[in-house]
């Protein structure tokens, strides 16, 4: 199964607890990124890592496993999925 924006999708990756896209975390998750690139650059847009699907994808994606960031379950998820 893939992350999609099919019917049934309840939210975007950018607002999901499974999703990590803060630049510092990405620079740690992708060794060498800061050497000849940057987590803070425009080309990255708002892409991030989905800890559920183990994919690097845009914040505007979504899937049926969406979990709103900030919920009590989200706090547990975020501890598990941070790189």
């Amino acid at each position, binding site marked *: 199964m893939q992350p999609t924006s099919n019917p049934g999708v309840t939210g975007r990756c950018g607002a999901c607890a499974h999703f990590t896209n803060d630049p510092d975390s990405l620079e740690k998750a992708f060794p060498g990124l800061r050497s000849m690139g940057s987590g803070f650059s425009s080309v990255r847009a708002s*892409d991030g890592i989905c800890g559920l699907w183990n994919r690097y994808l845009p*914040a*505007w994606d979504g899937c049926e496993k969406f979990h709103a960031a900030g919920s009590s379950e989200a706090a547990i998820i975020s501890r598990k999925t941070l790189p």
Partner: protein
Amino acid sequence: MSENIATTGTPSTGGDATQPQHPAWHELWRKEDWWAVWLGLGLVVAGYALFSAGSSLAWIAVAPAKWTTFSQLTAQLSAAAPRYAALLGLFLVVFTVAASFIGYKAKSFIPAFILVFLVSVAIYAAGSWAQAQRYNLEPPLVALVLGLLVSNLLPLPEWLNSGLRVEFFIKTGIVLLGAGLPFTLIVWAGPVAILQASIVSIATFLVIYFVGRRLGLERPLAATLGAGGAVCGVSAAIAVGGAVRAKKEDPPIAITLVILWAIVLIFVLPFVSRALLLPAGVGGAWIGTSEFADAAGLAAAQTYGGIASHTAGISGTADQALIPYTLIKVVGRDVWIGIWAFVLAFISITRWEVSTTGRKANAGQIWWRFPKFVLGFIAASLVITLVVRGFTFADYNKLVKPGLVAPLISLRTWAFTFAFLSIGLTTRLRGLASAGRKPFVAFTSGVIVNVVLGYVLSAVVFRDYWANLTH
């Protein structure tokens, strides 16, 4: 955990989406590309304001002069100590302000940047030694090698990382580089740069992609590797990796291969160009076509410009290497990354994952992923071109060049030196992800095609064009 859509304001492709909490212009002070534009253009405007008032940035834009004996060096550094202190203060203030908005850790950025500045002064001074050229002590190479040795042999404290912002320094330097480039030259040479870069980019991508597929690599990894080799290195790898929904492990593989080959080519391209006695413009064009990351390419192009300017049998100056490099790399390759990402996202969604997804390729990413610092590069060129329009050539050389353009070139050289040192200090070979044999073979196939085709186009097909570009 997540900066989310809030920081970029990118809208959704689907109607089910949460709305962005901040508008798109939030990006104007959150992304380092925009800060490179503000800082670079700010310095250009400040330089012009001082020039108009009969003053100049020349006092603060200090740089080591040629020296022969160590006592000469210490004497000139002592005499100019207040100017160096002021220059450090200027960079420290503007970079720290930017750092605090972008989200770098400003507290550790300050001591880290002071260290970067002091080592850069030493590197710049070493490059100004009268015998430096005899020993190939080109400042970009010295900065890179020194950084690589230190970072790979010594344990470096974590706080130092905050000051090692390669991309930020290089983008600011590229905006300043625009100030030394007539806008008409960008318009005139841009199409040729785009043509040459496109031929090589497409060929390189296809070779890496199809060799990778032949070896059994999955499509997203093959595409991520292809973009890294064909467009703009690490930046392209993460842009396309996201667009095609690569596995989390895929971008680091591409990053490792880009870094390793980029470092090899920083040394190989300038020295092979010298062996072949390529004119500075031709060498710069080849490097712009065949190097991967902007910072690595600038290190190579500036090195070759330095070599060309003092080697018998090679025509051209340092700037004559940098200008074709920048046109091909920035105008010919970097600006198209959004298009590459969109097209590959479209193919990914409609062909690779057609049975499992209903996503749309979001055309908005052509702009969202656009490297915005290029706008600053073009704007800086436009500003200076308009400023010098009313001057005769003699007055330009007598007044505008020393009073306005030369100080901006000096500031640019400092920004590049910070970047070259930072490349070395951030490239920790043991920390890179393992790439594996198949990705290595696929990527290396593309490197070979890239380098050979880049040479043929630069040194054979368009040789006269690049050799005489700025004449």
